[in-house]
């Protein structure tokens, strides 16, 4: 990124911070309703220096990575089968849509009850929320593979594995990565929601602590900032991966 893109981005951030500060000053809000940006920044740095955030962040990241990996893995498999078998699609897609239409927030207490308040419950919640966008993107991507390329593969006697690896996956990759972009930000949501349903560490737990027993609203904001940064960083990773894999076509 050159200065040409950095400058407007920095300017937009500046405007946002000034507006935030203006709201705090004009509204004369107390710190426990809306802390000023510099208060949040100060608390953010202090929480990191004191090591308040790190263990919680580590817990949440672990849930996100495991949940995203299993959710994506399952979604790739199921999405592929859905694309290639109209019968399977007709049989199981209603259930997938129903599971997706039920808010994860409503499902999470049940899932924690089933899978326990430990890591497993969060991973299940995370992978469930990641599953839908990636599965749909995979299905659409595999279905839209150019029939003419498949005919080429057949004329060259590509076996099943070669068709999948050299034709279908590369052709569907832009669509799949689009689904993963959505999925990775949802994985963050899934982890936090899972932690709210019962956990002893994680950024979701820290939010509850900051609002409840600690009553440290600047810390609450610092945690929110951390969560947002995690989501942005993960999204960026997928975008970079995308650029690397399908940059030149």
């Amino acid at each position, binding site marked *: 990124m050159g200065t040409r893109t950095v400058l407007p981005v920095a300017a937009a951030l500046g405007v946002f911070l000034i507006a935030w500060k203006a709201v705090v000053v004009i509204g004369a809000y107390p710190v426990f309703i809306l802390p000023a940006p510099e208060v949040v920044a100060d608390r953010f740095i202090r929480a990191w220096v004191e090591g308040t955030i790190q263990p919680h962040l580590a817990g949440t990241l672990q849930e996100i990575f495991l949940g995203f990996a299993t959710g994506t893995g399952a979604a790739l498999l199921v999405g592929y089968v859905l694309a290639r078998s109209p019968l399977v699609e007709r049989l199981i897609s209603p259930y997938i849509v129903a599971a997706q239409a039920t808010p994860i927030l409503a499902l999470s207490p049940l899932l924690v009850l089933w899978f326990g308040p430990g890591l497993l419950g969060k991973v299940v919640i995370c992978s469930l929320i990641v599953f839908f966008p990636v599965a749909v993107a995979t299905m659409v991507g595999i279905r839209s593979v150019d029939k*003419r390329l498949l005919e080429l*593969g*057949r*004329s060259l*006697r*590509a076996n099943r594995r*070669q068709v999948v690896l050299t034709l279908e996956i590369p052709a569907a990759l832009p669509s799949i990565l689009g689904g993963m972009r959505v999925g990775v930000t949802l994985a963050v949501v899934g982890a936090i929601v899972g932690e709210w349903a019962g956990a002893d560490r994680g950024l979701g737990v820290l939010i509850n602590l900051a609002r409840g027993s600690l009553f440290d609203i600047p810390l609450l904001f610092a945690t929110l900032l951390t969560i947002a940064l995690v989501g942005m960083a993960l999204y960026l990773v997928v975008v970079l991966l995308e650029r690397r894999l399908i940059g030149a076509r």
Partner: protein
Amino acid sequence: MTPGARPAGGSGSATDTGAIRASGLAVDFPLRRGGRLLALDQLNLEIAGGEIVALIGPNGSGKSTLLRAIAGLLPPLRGTVELDGVPITGPDPRIGLVFQEPRLLPWRTAAENICYPLELAGWDAERRRDRLAQLLDLVRLDPSAVGSRPFELSGGTGQRVALARALALQPEVLLLDEPFSQLDALTRERFDLELLALWERSATTTVLVTHNIAEAILVADRVIVLSARPGRVVADIPVDLPRPRTLASLEDAFVTRAAREIRAWLGESSGEASAEAAVPDATVVDTTVAGAA
């Protein structure tokens, strides 16, 4: 270079491999709206090893279907297609196929596209590299283009890459489905001549599907005319032009006669009055049948 180089002069000299025979061939395929369409019926065709033949016919006469049946992509409903006396039951490495469009994998470079059949066949990287060098030479592909992605290539270069890919496994038979129809007229002529030169240097049986009478005459030993659907062979016109041929070959008086004959058969087979065959000789050769059906 394909093994068993053609004897000098080489016009139509038969080799012992790459002979195609279709007997009593019928091919149908399912329609999207249900039912099946009979594209070819009672088609008999014999192509000697090393021969170069043009397939011409009205739109929907099943030219491409015939090509796909020979390539083993469409199973016969009745009858057989044989390669060197053995029925073709599926795609065969002895047969190379060039489609109407380059049909390259957009995520691979030109070189990777050329080597794709070798990869699928399990060749290691070193053998692939050696073969790639030979193929670039064979189809006269500019080595600076091999690192490019398909979207960066011109239509002609793309088709050159596709030709190299079809030749990668040293096929005995090369099938071309209107390969140059999307190129402009001058580029097409250049490619026709290069195809001829390539054929003259190799022993590859070549079947060219085309809409273009001039192209068929310029390239082929024989021009085979298919009827309207269901397609069968209605005429088999030998082209007795000396080789090597050049664009000047098209000025031979024989060409006008052959073109008129092909045109008459096409008019008849597409169910139209053959009045078109009466147009002045000079324009006959240059007209394609594309708009006729």
